[in-house]
């Protein structure tokens, strides 16, 4: 295809092979371009972009405290992104990680409330199991309706997020509200035994290692097992999957169960590892940012921790700019959106070589 702009011709040539370095170059360039375009947004808000980005970088990665806080933000992003990525790989456009996270937080709270007397080695695994199953069940619902009724999963997963968020509201304002917390709507503090330990001197809870373990496990599952192959076949070409005799329904239910379960663990981490309570507004939209995190990592589970770390920094740094320059947090959200935009837009380089020349 050739596009003509005045005397310049731009030709899109289909690539014969896909060079490996592109997998690193494209996301990197996308982030750089997003920051460049983002600086236009910052200028229009009356902020000098260079100082702003410097402040952002300092708040995100500048010292050991900011680094640790960035990792704290990266934990839920990582889990939610992995839960999202595995369903995307199966061609299921699930943007329900936010709701699954909320349901996970709710389930984790319930599990600790019901088992509050038990020792840590009982209550924490129990909470994980309850959380995983609850988030997984929640995540499977849209898959069921997709296969049985053809309901578009983008809409159903998105709508179910609101249901989940409002369900949390109901419990923290209603039956589970801690009367001792006065104006602060939250549940009573978790018993000591139900809390996930943190690395000494930081707020980095051990959910981090669970998340890293899941990354490796997912990678193994996707590349080494029959289930993983089936998932990628379904995601690559649903008709070929049917032709190959793969049970698409069963596999979609399974993959949304796993994806929902993993995303729900993010909610458990926030409740049991960070806040030690279920507050109103447990997530500032981790589940949505997770979509961007997953795409930036090209849906590769082992690349997600790095991409989550970057976005944790962006979130954290965003608070920095917000405080220093008194600009709304929406500006930082805009930059996030720009990253997704450019990751997707620049994906064209995976398929095409672009040649620009003067017209003959």
């Amino acid at each position, binding site marked *: 295809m*050739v596009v003509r702009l*005045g*005397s310049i011709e731009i030709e899109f*040539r*289909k*690539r*014969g*092979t*896909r060079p490996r370095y592109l997998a690193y170059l494209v996301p990197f360039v996308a982030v750089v371009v997003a920051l460049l375009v983002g600086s236009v947004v910052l200028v229009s808000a009356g902020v000098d972009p260079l100082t702003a980005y410097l402040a952002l970088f300092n708040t995100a990665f500048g010292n050991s405290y900011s680094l640790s806080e960035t990792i704290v933000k990266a934990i839920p992003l990582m889990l939610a992104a992995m839960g999202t990525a595995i369903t995307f790989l199966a061609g299921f456009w699930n943007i329900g990680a936010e709701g699954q996270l909320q349901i996970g937080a709710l389930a984790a709270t319930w599990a600790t409330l019901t088992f509050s007397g038990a020792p840590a080695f009982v209550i924490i695994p129990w909470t994980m199991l309850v959380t995983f199953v609850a988030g997984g069940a929640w995540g499977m619902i849209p898959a069921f309706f997709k296969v049985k009724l053809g309901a578009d999963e983008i809409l159903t997963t998105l709508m179910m997020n609101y249901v989940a968020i409002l369900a949390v509201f109901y419990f923290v304002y209603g039956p589970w509200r801690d009367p001792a917390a006065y104006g602060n709507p939250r549940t009573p503090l978790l018993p000591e035994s139900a809390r996930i330990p943190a690395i000494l001197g930081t707020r980095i809870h051990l959910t981090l290692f669970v998340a890293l373990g899941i990354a490796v496990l997912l990678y193994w599952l996707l590349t*080494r*097992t*029959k*289930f993983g*192959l089936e998932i*990628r*076949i379904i995601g*690559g*070409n649903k*008709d*070929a*999957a*049917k*032709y*190959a*005799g*793969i*049970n698409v329904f069963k596999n979609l239910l399974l993959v949304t169960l796993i994806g929902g379960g993993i995303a729900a663990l993010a909610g458990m981490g926030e409740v049991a590892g960070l806040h030690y309570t279920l507050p109103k507004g447990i997530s500032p939209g981790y589940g949505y940012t997770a979509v961007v995190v997953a795409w930036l990592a090209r849906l590769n589970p082992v690349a997600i921790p790095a991409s989550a770390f970057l976005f944790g920094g962006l979130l954290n740094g965003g608070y920095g700019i917000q405080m220093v320059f008194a600009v709304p947090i929406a500006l930082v959200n805009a930059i996030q959106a720009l990253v997704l935009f450019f990751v997707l837009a620049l994906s064209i380089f995976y398929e095409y*070589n672009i040649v620009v020349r*003067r*017209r003959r």
Partner: protein
Amino acid sequence: MGPRRIVLYINRNPSSTRRKVSELQETESAAAVVQMKGITKTFPGVLANDHVDFDIRSGEIHALLGENGAGKTTLMNILYGLYQPEEGEIYVDGRRVIINSPKDAINLGIGMVHQLFRLIPSLTVTENIVLGLRSSRRPFLDLDVAEKKLTDLSDRYGLKVDPKAKLWQLSVGEQQRVEILKALYRGAKVLIMDEPTSVLTPQEVNELMVIMKKMAAEGLAVIPFVTHKLREVMAISDRITVMRRGKVVATIQTKTTNERDLAMKMVGRMVLMETETVKVPSERAILELERLRAINDKGLLALEDVSLSIRQGEILGIAGVAGNGQTELAEVITGLRKATGGRILINGKDITNRSTREIMEAGIGHVPEKRVETGVVPDLNVRENLILTSYDDPSLSSRFLLERASIDRHVDKLIADFGIMTPSKDSQVRLLSGGNLQRLILAREVTRKNLSALVTVYPTRGLDVGATEFIRNTLVSLKKKGVAILLISEDLDEILSLSDRIAVVFKGRIMGVLSASEAKIDEIGLMMAGAVKAE
């Protein structure tokens, strides 16, 4: 250098093109309507057109012949303005032109009849034809005027079609006439026809040939481009240009050549036109269909009481115009579509409406109609695609895990045995050519464990002569091993040369089953058009 100012020369006087053929033959110096000189066009890694010269005169049928990938489609797309050449010049009526879009081409009097018709079923013939044109009575339609002009055109060229009929009521042959009329209505004096006979019954092919001759006699220039139907090319054309690997091999007067010579020029070597046929006598029925019924995606009856039996080592060909139930037949047998009645037996075991996986395990292989859409996962690599339907086999995987070492060994063997050209087994299959893709699918399907029947749909469609030969030979060697093969094809020559028996399908019914040795092409043609077999 600033942008070049482009001047298009537009012929607004159609009468000047209506020269008599006799005049043309008398004046040997008759100028070409279209002349393409030194056309060069590259795609990544492919020199699609390498300094190609091509010309056509009024009143001439000049066929463009070549295998898939020879560059004939590229050349015609350049003439029709879909691609721009990197080098070379195009002259229309002796004037240099630059054709930037199909609109420019149409203004220059160049029309294209596509292989897949671009018509709207719910509109009438006239409506389809004026679609997109400026009406003389804007904002109202001038259907009466259009209909008058249309009737004139169809009378002059013998293109019989009812202007008031809705498109969906027309046969494929009639729809093609509408496509031709559409081009003529827009003032085409040069008509490019993309594989014009590929969707027609033998009778319709004959009618089309009469029409093409008539158009040429009326002074039009006609360029049919054709992949393998050499017999038709010989019967219809005045001149033939043969292309191979982006170059023109020869431009010849049809009178001075023959089919064998053309095939050799196309492929660059001697070609065995006949595939070896082997009789494997066996009475044992492997795949049996009993009064099978099914509905299509529109909810209409697609298969009506289809009963067939394929014996061990037998190839049963299904002949028919595309869209008469062939697709549904293959889908029902392989479990991709539910049967609404009847039974399917494999080795005596009832597999009607079982899951695809169970049917595969019962011993049925499937080379699907749509290679890219259903046969492979384009983004996955060659290794993964080669085990797409066999990864569950105990030799390649345990209960849960893929056995990487044995998969690699299996895949390496298939790549070598079937000559699949790929940079490595880690390359994405989207990068493979059509012939290699089909080799991959065939390799996978015919090497499946306990294969006793193979359903193969349009196995050589769109493939070059080399790949076609390979695939046909593979089918024959499979037959020798005793596999029962259901061969669905639109290529009658293929069916005739490979099959032991031929079943003709029309509107979802089997019109009759003929023995290949006794079948006559005319008889098959009539049955394809709905005539019941004469007993």
